């Protein structure tokens, strides 16, 4: 006899949901037979607001799109504006941008370590990694004045030069974090129970990935070597030497492995950038923001964030304000159609782990 499916509302107030969204699950016993996501709890209408702001004011809205990693949005906006206007960026600013982006990546990985393990009940990991993340945020605070919102990478360069001795402090932090990452491996990747929980769960295979336009670690977790930093290089990524890790498992475990190795690649990139950092100015002066107009045109730039590629489309009508800004976050494709697809057939115990593994970030979907 077929069991009658019950409806289970997961969220918006639920500790297992990453952020503020809801999944309506149809459950038979412990198995999910249907899922519908409901988003929109965080819709602030950024794109509408930006149409009312001038080009510099709307830059300050940019970092608020998704909070775990704010710099790729600023980077996208800066590059899109530069592409429309044809503005040059000093060489040193490019290196600093890469450094900031990779530091933000690393910080976001630390948060992911906490989230992924917290979703599986290993709270010690979250306490360690989120605590250690503060060391990176300290660096950001010194550099930009803010822990979470930096507003540092802006059109024409970066807002100000590195403080004296900043590189040494970055290297010191990296040395510490590298040691800590090994500790995390002992706790997480050598953990038999963790392996048992995540292997074979939340499978996104190649066909599904292409059908849903999946990006980032999820795509690399199913064996496709795809990284915007290599495929469509921006800033100075084409001069740097780093690997793009892939894994064939297509499950949570594979994506965890990808992220684990990517965190080390980020450290490697930052070290290279600090070695290669040229001198010079960091900022090409923009005109008076109140009178700053961009030529008519549009641009689409993509930036690799920790969750995958972020695409930003900006159209200018030659005026003081953006005509249209549209940001497609990485989670935009993961969190709705793909999540609904992946959850079918899984255990309700794994919903939170799958969401964390896909990198679902609701503010990025809803903007």
């Amino acid at each position: 006899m077929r069991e009658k499916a019950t409806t289970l509302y997961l969220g918006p107030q639920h500790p297992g949901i990453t952020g503020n969204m809801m999944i309506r699950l149809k459950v038979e016993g412990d198995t999910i037979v249907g899922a519908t996501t409901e988003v929109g709890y965080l819709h602030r209408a950024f794109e509408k607001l930006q149409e009312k702001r001038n080009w510099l004011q709307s830059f300050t809205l940019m970092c608020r799109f998704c909070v775990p990693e704010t710099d790729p949005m600023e980077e996208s906006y800066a590059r899109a504006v530069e592409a429309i206007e044809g503005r040059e960026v000093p060489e040193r600013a490019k290196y600093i941008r890469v450094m900031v982006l990779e530091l933000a990546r690393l910080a976001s990985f630390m948060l992911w370590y906490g989230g992924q393990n917290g979703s599986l009940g290993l709270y010690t990991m979250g306490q360690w990694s989120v605590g250690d993340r503060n060391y990176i945020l300290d660096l950001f605070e010194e550099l930009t004045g803010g822990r979470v919102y930096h507003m540092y990478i802006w059109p024409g360069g970066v807002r100000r030069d590195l403080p004296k001795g900043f590189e040494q402090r970055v290297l010191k932090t990296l040395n510490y974090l590298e040691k800590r990452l090994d500790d995390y491996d002992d706790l997480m990747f050598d953990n038999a129970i963790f392996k048992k929980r995540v292997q074979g769960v939340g499978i996104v295979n190649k066909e599904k990935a292409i059908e849903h336009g999946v990006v980032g670690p999820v795509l690399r977790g199913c064996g496709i070597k795809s990284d915007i930093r290599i495929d469509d290089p921006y800033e100075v990524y084409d001069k740097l030497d780093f690997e793009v890790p892939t894994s064939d498992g297509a499950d949570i475990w594979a994506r965890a492995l990808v992220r684990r190795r990517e965190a080390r690649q980020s450290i490697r990139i930052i070290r290279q950038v600090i070695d290669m950092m040229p001198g010079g100015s960091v900022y090409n002066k923009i005109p008076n923001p109140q009178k700053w107009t961009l030529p008519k045109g549009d641009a689409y730039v993509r930036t690799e964030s920790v969750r995958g590629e972020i695409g930003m489309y900006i159209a200018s009508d030659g005026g003081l304000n953006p005509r249209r800004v549209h940001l497609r976050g990485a989670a935009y494709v993961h969190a709705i159609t793909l999540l609904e697809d992946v959850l079918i057939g899984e255990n309700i115990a794994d919903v939170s782990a799958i969401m964390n593994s896909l990198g679902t970030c609701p503010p990025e979907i809803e903007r």
Partner: protein
Amino acid sequence: MESIWYKILGAIITVIVAFIVGLTYMGLSRKITARIQNRKGPPFYQNFIDALKLASKTSAIHHGFMQHIGPAFMMITSIMSVLVVPVLTGDQWFSNLNFKGDLIFLLYIMVFGPLGMALGAGQTGNPNSAIGVTRGLSQMVGFEIPWVMALVALMMQYKTASIVDLINIQQEQGVWLMFSSPFAFIAAVLAMLGMFRYSPFDIVGAPTELASGPVSENGGKYLFTLMSSNSIFAFAKLTLYVDLFLGGASNIVELLIKTFAIYLIPMLYGTVSPRYRTEQAIKYFWGWPLFFGFLALLYAAIF
């Protein structure tokens, strides 16, 4: 006749001691977990404050009669099980109300509470509660089997179902039962991991999966009752372990040291383990713990 009054007075004091010790242990566990997690952690008496606060919260929600009964069942079970476990051996006051055959009685009574809780949680109508209860009962099915096997092995080996007799045997032989019947001890300790519901067996109230499981709808006084009954129950279980396998305790310091040593096992294991899925937990209990349970039975049958 006088000794009965002593015993009853002692039993009342035992319950109070159990409440205090249980909450302190939970507080210490929070503190130790915090130290492992690189932070200062709450003071060890934090759980008393929490309990006091919960008791002083209003509970205006009403989901029906059974919701009140659930926590009450748990409380009654906890108190009954702590009453039949001799806390201090040889002490007239604190040998409690145990009798011949109390191991079998204990086995029965320890299952009774979660069942009552299941009824109460079912009444609240929260799907998380319902799923949590199902999980709790499945997990109980998992760890009860090796646990019962270990106890049956002890009963077979020493031809008694009385805890006091078992303690006396240990004192006569001069060897703790954890050495003289090691397989039963191993099976019992592995089952204990599930009994205390620390990670990886905290599947009942897993926050990221079920909010807080069966107690989702219970706040305030209900939660206070559950919390205190849990602490009493934890003390009862720990004392039972000490009595059965560690030769009992003749004074309160010895008791605290031995119980805390036992308590550290599930707690420390919990800080470094993620949570099992329900079927994985049951599979785990029906693996090695069951194997050691069989070994214990064989061992008891042969010797």
